[in-house]
C-alpha cells in the first residue's frame, strides 16, 4: 500500500516483469500448441503405463519422506547437539546435488553389482530398474523439501506453548501430537505437497536408477526422442496440471514455498 503508485517504483517492477514474462512465455506457447493437437487421442500405451507408475511411486516416496522426515524436522527444530551443522548439511545435500549425480551415487550404493543391491536382487527384489528403484530415487531427491519446510514450521511454534503443555502433565510425544503438529500443520502440509511435486517430476536420478519401468518424466523423454515435442504433449499436460494443483494447494494452505533462512 505504502509503496504503490509512487514514482520510482517502476524500476523494480519493470525489471521483475521481464523475468515474469519469461516464466509466462513457454506456458502460453505450450498451451497454444496443445490446443492445436488433440491430446486425448494421442495417449500411447507407454504413456498410460508411465502415468500408473508415477501415480504409484510418487505417493509412496512422499509417504516415506514424511514418516521419517517430519520427526527429523522436529528434532532439528527443537534440539541442539554436536554435529548439528553436519546433519543440516546432509539434509540440504540432496537438494543442491544435481539429480544425475544423485542417481550415479545411488547406483554405487544399491546397483545390481553392489553388495546391498546384489543381495536384494538375489531375493528377487531388484532395486534398480524397478518401482522400488523409482521410489528410492524420488525419496532421495524429494525428501529434503518436507524436512526443511516442516522444520521451519516447528521452529515457528512458540516454545512456551510446548512448555505449557508439558507442565499440564503431557509428555513430549503427547505434546507433539496435540500442540506442535497442529500448529505447524500448514508448513508440514506445504512440505508434503512440495515433496510430492518434486517426486512426481523427478527425472535425472530416476533415469540413472530406473530407466525402466518408465515414469511420466522418463516417458516424456523417450517420446520426445522418438516423436518430437508433440509426442510429449499428453504426459506434459498431465504433469502441468498436477503442478498447478500443487501450487493451488500451497496457496490454499497459505504457504507458498520459499527458500528462506532457517
Amino acid at each position, binding site marked *: 500500500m505504502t509503496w504503490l503508485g509512487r514514482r520510482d517504483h517502476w524500476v523494480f517492477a519493470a525489471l521483475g516483469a521481464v523475468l515474469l514474462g519469461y516464466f509466462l512465455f513457454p506456458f502460453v506457447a505450450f498451451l497454444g500448441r496443445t490446443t492445436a493437437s488433440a491430446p486425448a487421442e494421442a495417449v500411447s500405451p507407454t504413456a498410460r503405463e508411465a502415468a500408473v507408475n508415477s501415480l504409484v511411486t510418487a505417493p509412496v516416496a512422499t509417504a516415506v519422506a514424511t514418516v521419517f522426515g517430519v520427526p527429523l524436522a522436529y528434532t532439528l527444530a527443537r534440539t541442539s547437539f554436536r554435529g548439528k551443522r553436519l546433519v543440516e548439511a546432509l539434509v540440504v545435500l540432496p537438494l543442491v546435488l544435481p539429480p544425475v549425480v544423485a542417481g550415479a551415487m545411488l547406483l554405487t550404493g544399491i546397483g545390481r553389482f553392489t553388495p546391498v543391491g546384489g543381495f536384494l536382487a538375489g531375493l528377487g527384489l531388484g532395486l534398480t530398474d524397478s518401482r522400488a528403484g523409482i521410489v528410492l530415487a524420488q525419496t532421495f531427491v524429494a525428501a529434503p523439501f518436507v524436512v526443511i519446510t516442516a522444520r521451519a514450521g516447528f521452529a515457528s511454534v*512458540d516454545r*512456551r*506453548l510446548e*512448555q*505449557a*503443555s*508439558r*507442565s*499440564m*502433565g*503431557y*509428555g*513430549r510425544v503427547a505434546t507433539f501430537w*496435540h*500442540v506442535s503438529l*497442529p*500448529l505447524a500443520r500448514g508448513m508440514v502440509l506445504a512440505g508434503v505437497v512440495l515433496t510430492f511435486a518434486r517426486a512426481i517430476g523427478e527425472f535425472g536420478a530416476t533415469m540413472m536408477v530406473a530407466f525402466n519401468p518408465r515414469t511420466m518424466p522418463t516417458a516424456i523423454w523417450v517420446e520426445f526422442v522418438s516423436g518430437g515435442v508433440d509426442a510429449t504433449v499428453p504426459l506434459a499436460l498431465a504433469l502441468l496440471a498436477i503442478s498447478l494443483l500443487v501450487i493451488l494447494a500451497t496457496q490454499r494452505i497459505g504457504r507458498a514455498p520459499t527458500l528462506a533462512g532457517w
Partner: protein
Amino acid sequence: MLSVTGLTKRYGDETVLAALSLSVDGGEFVTLLGPSGCGKTTTLLAIAGHVTPTAGTVSIGGRDVTDSPPEARSCGLVFQQDALFPHMTARENVAYALAPHDPDEQRQERRVDDLLSLVGMADHAGKHPEQLSGGQRRRVELVRALATDPDVLLLDEPLTGLDRALREDLRAEIARVHDRTGVTTLYVTHDQTEALSLSDRLVILDDGRVVGEGTPRSLYERPPNRFVASFLGPSAELTATLVSDDPPIAAWCGHEFVLEGSPPGDQITLLLRPDDVGNSFEGTATARDVRVEATVQDASHRGPHSSVTVEAPDGTHLSLAVEGFPDLHRGDDLAVGFDAADLFAFAGGERCAVSRSREAEYYDEP
C-alpha cells in the same frame, strides 16, 4: 511447599543463577523481584523443569523433583506473553489442561465452567484467543494454570505489556484468585509496585543472587542494603564524608549526621526518598531536622502532583512531590527539608543507621 536450594545455572562462561536458595510455604504468595536479566525467569523455568540447572535441587511438596520432567512436577505456569493454544477456544484451553488429571468428562465440564466463571470469562468460553482482548487472554491463562490444581502456581511477569488500568484490574484479580484458591504462588516481576502490593513476602534478586528477603513493609522501611533501598523506590543519593570516627559523624552540605555502628570507609551515601522531602513552597520544609537552600531544576506534572527536581548547594539533585500544578520554574529558589530519621545511610553497600542530625541537636538547645 516449594523449596529451591543452591540453584546454579551457567551458559558457557556466563553465570545466570549463582547458588540461589528460596522457599515458599504452602498457601503463601511470594514475589521474586529484580531488574531485567537478574535470573528471575530462569529460576521459574528451572522450578517448572523447562531449564536444567547446572547445580542445585528443586523440591515441590516435599518431593525432590530436580530430575523429574516438567509433566511430573505439578506446576501451573503463566508466561509473560500469551501462551494460550491458538488452535483451541478458551474452554478447550482449560479443558486440555484438565484432561490428564480428571478422566470424568462431566466433572471436567463443570470444573471448566467454574474456572472460567471465577475470572468472569464464562461468556467468552467459545472464543479463540485471537478473538479475546489482552486482559481476557490473561484471565483464561490464569485459570488454565489453576486447572491442574497445581502444587505451585508460577507467574512470570503476567502483567507486562498491558496498559495501566488493565494492570490494576488484573493485579486485583490475581490477589482475589489467590485468596479464593489459596494456591502456593511464586510471582516474578521487575515492577516494584506490583511486588509491594501483591505479596506476603518479597525475595529480591540481583545478578543471580538473593539480596533481600522479607515482607514488603520491612524491606521498604528498613532496606538491608543499598541495592534494595534504591530498587524499591526512587531516591536521591547524598554523598557525605565521615568527619569523625567516634562517634561516627557524616557531613553533607553543612549538616552533620550521627551514625550508629562503625562504618567501613569514609564515603557515606545517604539515600532520601522524594516523599520524605518537604519544601518551602508548600511550607512543609520548616518542621524538619534539616533545611537546605536549593534551586529548582525542573518541574514536571504528573496529574495529582508534580515532580520537582532541585539542586542542593553541593550539586546533588533531589526530587520531591508538590501537589497539583505549582508555579515553580527552573532557577527558582526553593528550600527543602527532611528528617534525619528518614535517611538510609550506606557505607560500602551495607546499611548503617542514622540516629540524628547534629544541627537538629543545636536547635533543640538554643
